[in-house]
């Protein structure tokens, strides 16, 4: 119980020091604290037992989490967007590692290719010269860091308590008959696994599911995309139209 709490405390203090506070003092200390917390947290991850899968997972997870931390704490919003793109690439790698090939590619195309580029366009339109004061001072950095890390702590506690009993039950199955049954179910399950999610024609199965069970949701999502497009055009046009009467407000 002590080590996870210490990890979260270190991470919260590190994030507090790393977030923009108007001064650059303590950022290095914050970075060191956050990296130590990341190492402590990573060392407690259960390993899979295959060094290849472990190495891939650890590399991708480290890329994802470190880029996410950079994206939140950098002061220049352009760097934030670039680091967010890096984090998206890491997430796509994790998707791929988990067998979701189509989602990995869709994440890269839609998020990193479209949404991120739109962010960069808006930043280029709207970013003032030099560092803006609102990028250098944040709201309530200690409270925000504490709240975020408390959320991580509660979530990981819940995850641990949900997943912990299952391996213990599996470990108790000592009698040979039970073990044989276990092996049989494991083999059956492996077969089912290879039939469904991890099979080579994974994308075909995904499409069958998408256009079969979720056809109505798909149509609604298409409608929603169209409505969002029209809505965005309307919002921009109205904002421009109302600017002239109260233009002196800024």
């Amino acid at each position, binding site marked *: 119980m002590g080590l996870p709490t210490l990890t979260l405390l270190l991470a919260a203090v590190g994030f507090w020091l790393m977030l923009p506070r108007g001064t650059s003092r303590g950022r290095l200390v914050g970075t060191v604290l956050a990296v130590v917390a990341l190492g402590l947290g990573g060392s407690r991850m259960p390993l899979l037992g295959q060094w290849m899968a472990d190495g891939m997972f650890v590399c991708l997870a480290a890329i994802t989490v470190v880029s996410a931390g950079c994206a939140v704490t950098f002061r220049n919003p352009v760097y934030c967007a670039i680091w967010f793109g890096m984090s998206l690439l890491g997430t796509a790698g994790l998707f791929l590692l988990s067998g979701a090939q189509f989602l990995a590619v869709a994440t890269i195309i839609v998020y990193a290719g479209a949404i991120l580029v739109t962010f960069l366009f*808006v930043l280029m339109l709207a970013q*003032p010269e030099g560092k803006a004061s609102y990028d250098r001072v944040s709201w309530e950095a200690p409270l925000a860091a504490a709240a*975020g890390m408390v959320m991580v702590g509660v979530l990981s506690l819940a995850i*641990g308590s949900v*997943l912990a009993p299952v*391996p213990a039950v599996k470990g108790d199955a000592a009698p040979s008959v039970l073990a044989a049954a276990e092996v049989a179910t494991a083999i059956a399950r492996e077969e089912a696994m290879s039939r469904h999610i991890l099979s080579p024609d994974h994308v075909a199965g995904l499409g069958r599911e998408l256009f079969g069970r979720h056809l109505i*949701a798909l149509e609604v999502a298409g409608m929603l995309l169209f409505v969002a497009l029209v809505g965005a055009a309307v919002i921009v046009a109205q*904002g421009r139209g109302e600017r002239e009467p109260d233009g002196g407000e800024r």
Partner: protein
Amino acid sequence: MPHEIALLHNYLIVGAVLFGIGAIGFLSRRNMIVMFISAEMMLQGVSLSLVAWSRFHNDFGGQMLVLFIIAIAACEAAIVLALVIALFQRRGNLDIAQWQFLREANQPEFREEPLPDESGERPEEWPHLPAAGVQPTVSPEEADYRASV
């Protein structure tokens, strides 16, 4: 099957960490674009958990949900960026504190303190290009012509 459980556990933890980091950014940053990036990061954390559960249960439902999350995120990005541009045209910057009059009546006002002096911080250094090649010589008549043009 401890292997599957360990994989699920790792993915869920990474998803939770992404969610928490996004929450920190959303709560503390004041640039509207960075706030939106943080919100997208929280969505990524949830997507990671859903993909892990989908693999664990050997069911396409989680991946379907992530697919729809991506579609909704695209809609959301269009709307939010349109709103950000409209707000930027009203106030001239991306500071969310410009809109704090929308807060609840009993909340204290956020006052911007004057920034501490950044004397300890070096100014940004840009690379200097060394001079390369030789200065072209210009004949007197050409110089005269150029001056007249």
